[in-house]
């Protein structure tokens, strides 16, 4: 069994006990434990079930590479699935639950899949569930979805907050192990601005466990001193619990800082911070990961990486078993054997797959400590079910004939080490195959290249394929110094510290144990623990023609789990290479993509949640609207009142009331969102003549004119009233959504085509609160405010004037989008609320009501006025809408003119605007199509038109609509049919689109 030792445990504080629960059981650990070390201390080796076969799975590793120990962490608002126990720091009250089992971890029904595993090889789902086709959607997919998936999706709202942080530095060092610290020190000594990120809570990385001396001092003391020196330097920033997640173009790096995961109840502030770093040079000192060995039963709980077994003893004072068999193809695992022996535990045997002529120093040390070593041996299979009970020993060279069985409760395996090349590779760094160490290492001659054509990422230490303290420190020092000097800093004067080195015997590549393992053994030799991929699956993929590593990966799902194959990739592609009978470099690796390990969605979203999820634009009257029953409608990024709903009213009631009131009394509309663009210069008239389809240069100062804008392809893009302010200044109103895009459209033409024209534009949309004062009592209201003359004579239809009303400086436009007597009054935005209040006060006796956008729509539809976005959709041209009058024949050119002559644009078959009136007075469904006889080539009914706007008009007491209909204007009085989605066929008569006051008498008073 696994247990806490009486001594040891560098990282834990035995004075601080911590309680937590796992699957509801209360357990105890110490401050400084990870959830994994605490679970092991409580003899909880079984931590989950595998994805496909529901095999019992235990903790394999001690760090980010852990594939099995994934838990659901927290509850409700702090719930998060798929959290790695090995990187979860223990805190008091932590609640964890294992994943992927039913009904319980100990007894799982899904484990029957394991019995059927022979029938569920790679590609099983593809082959099995393809026929018959209809069963996929209703039978297979729901079943597979039920069975698949590891953690549960959170249901509650996240209680925590998150943020981003933009940082800039000269040299960014990713990894705070001995290599990262050495590189940082060398770079910082040159005066460069340095940031160091370490993903764990501790500096020094593996060097603390593996030991050694630097400049004749123990390495842990050296780490302590370096951290202290670096922390004191003003040009260095050190962050623990911050992972370098991804490296991107131009020295852009994402860092993932976990601020409060280790103490969620005792800190305020955000939980995670996503660092968005721009670095001059990036050093990846990301270390190396140990590889498992592929032997039968290597997934049985109790089989662990040798380095992890050593970590648990040394860092947490936890033994994973009383009797641990060590199996290896390299010298490093001997350190584990020696550490276990030193801790008073039993190592029955070291099974070394190699045969070496002489003992290396580590072998001699192990033997001297009384540990039995069997060279040329390996594991035929592991004995046990939910826990290791022993190993069957065989010769590595054979086919797995059992020589003896050795009882044990843990197996420490080492298949060699792979440099963590992920961050090096994210942005295009290439890899070399190192035959001596059987690993991919960075090809420093093919580094990620920056905009200046020079490398912007350098690997250092073990991440650069250097092992042994002396090599690591020497490499890291040189890389750190180079990074700083490459950025123009002086080279550091100090030399690299001198570390001792231990001679190690060469490792031997072992991809399968024993090398001749038969089918039965291979089908139990796991490569990818999380996605349940075995040696036999990869071999099957190769046999079935999935020769590309990327194809084999997707076919078998090797390396596609949340750990992204940190343990399995190299072993898997070695098996694939062997099956394809080609060298490993020829097979290559799959692509390394960010993030290095999963990062939280919250960190990616940053501050963008709740009230600042999205910017909402507010007019100066927003708060008043909100306090007065506004039912909000999003219009672009703005919020506009759709209607002002009174107590006891439905929204529809409110719209009907407002619409009638405008025609009978007085309505106020907040029109502040409409775009207002100043166009000034001696060429301004010429410029506007190019932008609008009609003539704007002939407009007299003091007058207004409605205008249309087309894109260069002839399609309507915007409309609005243009006012000429003075000799060389115009003010162009745009639609609410068009303010920014039309401003940009103008700048684009001015900057790219007509750069020599004397025109400046400015978007002054937000400078003004603009209020439409509309209805028969509009003039009376303005007269009650007093000030400027707003009579018909002084301010005629389509005129504007500057003046004063109620003591406010105003610009009054006599324009109408409703067919009523109507003014739009612009005041300074800061005075908008006060002016609105003044209008409401004088309007009280005139029947004033504010009205919203739906009333605006109904009023304009009653008058047959088109709306950009309703009658237009990017495919409509002015001619479709009967707006020929607005297409200047005098002008030699304007945007869209040439496009209008294209055959399709001039086609008489284009649908054209008409009014539509249902025969029974009901409301036509918006967007409904008018059907015609016959079917098209796809067997669909032919169509001859569609509804573009449709409302109930309270003023006319019936439904009114506009639509585009084939030959519509020539078919007045004809009845056409519009099938609705409700099964009803609506019959509507084609009529003139101007339903109300066709002579325009109401606005000309």
């Amino acid at each position, binding site marked *: 069994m696994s247990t806490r030792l009486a001594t040891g445990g560098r990282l834990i504080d035995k004075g601080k006990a911590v309680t937590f629960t796992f699957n509801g059981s209360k357990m105890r650990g110490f401050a400084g434990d990870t959830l994994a070390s605490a679970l092991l201390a409580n003899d909880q080796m079984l931590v989950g079930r595998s994805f496909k076969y529901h095999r019992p799975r235990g903790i394999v590793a001690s760090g980010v590479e852990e594939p099995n120990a994934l838990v659901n962490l927290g509850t409700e608002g702090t719930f998060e699935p798929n959290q790695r126990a090995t990187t979860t720091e223990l805190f008091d009250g932590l609640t964890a639950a294992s994943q992927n089992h039913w009904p319980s971890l100990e007894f799982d029904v899904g484990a029957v899949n394991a019995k059927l595993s022979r029938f569920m090889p790679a590609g099983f789902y593809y082959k099995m569930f393809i026929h018959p086709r209809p069963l996929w959607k209703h039978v297979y997919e729901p079943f597979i979805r039920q069975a698949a998936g590891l953690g549960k999706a959170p249901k509650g709202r996240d209680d925590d907050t998150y943020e981003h942080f*933009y940082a800039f530095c000269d040299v960014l060092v990713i990894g705070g192990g001995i290599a990262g610290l050495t590189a940082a020190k060398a770079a910082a000594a040159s005066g460069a601005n340095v940031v160091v990120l370490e993903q764990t809570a501790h500096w020094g990385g593996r060097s603390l466990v593996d030991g050694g001396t630097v400049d004749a001092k123990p390495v842990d003391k050296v780490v302590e001193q370096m951290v202290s020196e670096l922390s004191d330097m003003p040009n260095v920033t050190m962050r623990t619990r911050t992972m370098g997640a991804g490296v991107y173009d131009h020295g852009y790096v994402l860092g993932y800082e976990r601020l409060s995961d280790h103490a969620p109840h005792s800190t305020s*502030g955000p939980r995670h911070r996503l660092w968005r770093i721009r670095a001059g040079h990036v050093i990846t000192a990301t270390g190396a990961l140990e590889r498992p060995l592929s032997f039968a039963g290597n997934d049985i709980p109790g089989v662990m990486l040798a380095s992890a077994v050593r970590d648990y003893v040394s860092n947490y004072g936890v033994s994973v078993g009383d009797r641990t068999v060590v199996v290896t193809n390299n010298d490093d695992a001997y350190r584990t054997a020696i550490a276990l022996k030193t801790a008073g535990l039993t190592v029955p045997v070291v099974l070394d797959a190699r045969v070496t002529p002489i003992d290396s120093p580590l072998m001699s040390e192990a033997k001297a400590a009384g540990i039995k070593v069997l060279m040329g041996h390996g594991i035929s299979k592991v004995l046990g079910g939910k826990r290791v009970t022993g190993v069957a020993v065989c010769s590595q060279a054979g086919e797995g004939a059992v020589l003896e069985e050795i009882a044990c409760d843990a197996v420490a395996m080492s298949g060699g080490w792979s440099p963590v090349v992920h961050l090096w590779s994210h942005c295009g760094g290439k890899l070399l195959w190192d035959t001596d160490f059987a690993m991919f290492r960075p090809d420093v001659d093919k580094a990620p290249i920056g905009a200046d054509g020079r490398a912007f990422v350098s690997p250092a230490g073990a991440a650069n394929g250097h092992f042994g303290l002396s090599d690591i420190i020497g490499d890291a020092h040189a890389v750190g110094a180079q990074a700083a000097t490459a950025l123009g800093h002086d080279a550091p004067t100090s030399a690299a510290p001198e570390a001792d080195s231990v001679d190690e015997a060469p490792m031997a590549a072992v991809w399968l144990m024993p090398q001749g393992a038969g089918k039965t053994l291979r089908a139990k030799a796991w490569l990818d623990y999380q996605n349940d991929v075995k040696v036999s699956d990869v071999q099957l993929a190769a046999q079935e023609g999935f020769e590309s590593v990327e194809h084999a990966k997707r076919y078998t799902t090797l390396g596609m789990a949340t750990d992204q194959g940190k343990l399995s990739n190299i072993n898997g592609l070695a098996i694939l290479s062997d099956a394809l009978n080609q060298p490993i470099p020829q097979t290559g690796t799959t692509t390394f993509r960010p993030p290095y390990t999963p990062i939280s969605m919250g960190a990616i979203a940053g501050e963008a949640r709740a009230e600042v999820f999205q910017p909402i634009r507010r*007019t*100066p009257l927003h708060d008043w609207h909100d306090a007065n029953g506004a039912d909000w409608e999003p219009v672009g990024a703005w919020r506009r009142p759709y209607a002002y709903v009174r107590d006891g009213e439905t929204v529809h009631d409110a719209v009907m009331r407002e619409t009638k009131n405008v025609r009978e009394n007085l309505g106020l509309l907040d029109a502040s969102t409409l775009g207002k663009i100043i166009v000034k210069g001696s060429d301004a008239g010429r410029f506007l003549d190019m932008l609008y389809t009609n003539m704007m240069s002939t407009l007299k100062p003091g007058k207004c004119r409605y205008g249309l804008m087309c894109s260069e392809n002839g399609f309507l893009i915007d409309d609005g009233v243009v006012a000429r302010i003075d000799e060389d200044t115009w003010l162009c109103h745009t639609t609410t959504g068009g303010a920014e895009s039309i401003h940009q459209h103008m700048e684009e033409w001015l900057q790219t085509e007509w750069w020599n024209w004397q025109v400046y534009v*400015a978007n002054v949309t*937000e*400078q003004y609160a603009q209020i439409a004062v509309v209805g028969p009592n509009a003039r009376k209201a303005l007269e009650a405010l007093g000030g400027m003359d707003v009579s018909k004579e002084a301010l005629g239809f389509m005129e504007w004037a500057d003046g004063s009303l109620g003591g406010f400086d105003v610009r009054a436009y006599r324009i109408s989008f409703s067919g009523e007597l109507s003014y739009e009054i612009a005041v*300074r935005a800061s005075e908008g609320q006060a002016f609105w209040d003044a209008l409401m006060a004088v309007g009280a006796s005139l029947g004033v009501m504010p009205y919203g956008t739906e009333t605006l729509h109904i009023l304009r539809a009653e008058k047959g006025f088109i709306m950009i976005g309703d009658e237009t959709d990017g495919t409509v041209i002015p001619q479709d809408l009967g707006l020929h009058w607005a297409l200047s024949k005098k002008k030699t050119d304007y945007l869209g003119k040439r496009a209008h002559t294209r055959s399709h644009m001039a086609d008489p078959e284009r649908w054209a605007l008409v009014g539509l009136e249902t025969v029974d007075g009901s409301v036509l469904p918006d967007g409904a199509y008018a059907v015609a006889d016959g079917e098209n080539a796809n067997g669909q009914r032919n169509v001859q038109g569609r509804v573009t706007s449709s409302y109930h008009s309270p003023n006319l007491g019936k439904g009114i609509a506009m639509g585009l209909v084939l030959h519509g204007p020539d078919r007045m009085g004809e009845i056409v049919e519009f099938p609705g989605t409700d099964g009803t066929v609506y019959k509507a008569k084609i009529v003139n689109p101007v339903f109300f006051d066709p002579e325009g008498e109401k606005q000309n008073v």
Partner: protein
Amino acid sequence: MSRAVTALDGATSTDGIATITEVALQGMITLRGDLASAGIKKAAKTVASVDVPGAGQANCSDDRGICWMSPDELLVLCPYDEVDASLDKIRSTIGSDHALAVDVSDARAVFRVSGAGARDVLAKLVPVDLKPQAFAGGMFRRTRMAQVPVAFWLHEEDVFQIVCFRSHARYVFDLLKVAAQPGSAVDFF
């Protein structure tokens, strides 16, 4: 005029790692023209009483100043109640040269972020190098704050002055408040 109010009526937040305050109405004039011309320079200087700054710079003191917006645009600051008079001065100084001067005072909201955590708060929201040696007094930056455009400069050490569109005032204030939440100091600068 007493009836004129800022977008948030002078909202403040003091419980975070920096203090956030909406600044009183500020006169602002967009001046577009040939920045190399004597007329434009003189017109801006007449109103702001400071020299025209170079690219990426601002020359501000209290409620007067000039900010460089683009190769053909300046933002001229003056007291809010002097805008009309200032516009007249600018227009008469420029005369018939091709230029555009418009009042944008009411189209904007202005915030001040102050305190030891001010740089931290801003660096959470704007993609700008805010190390004291990289962003110092006299510099001016038009950029993005989370999802909206802003411009800012250092009013004095540890006091940033931020200009945004008036319609974004609530969003920007809320953003700054979230970024300044207690316990969120970064200790980077």
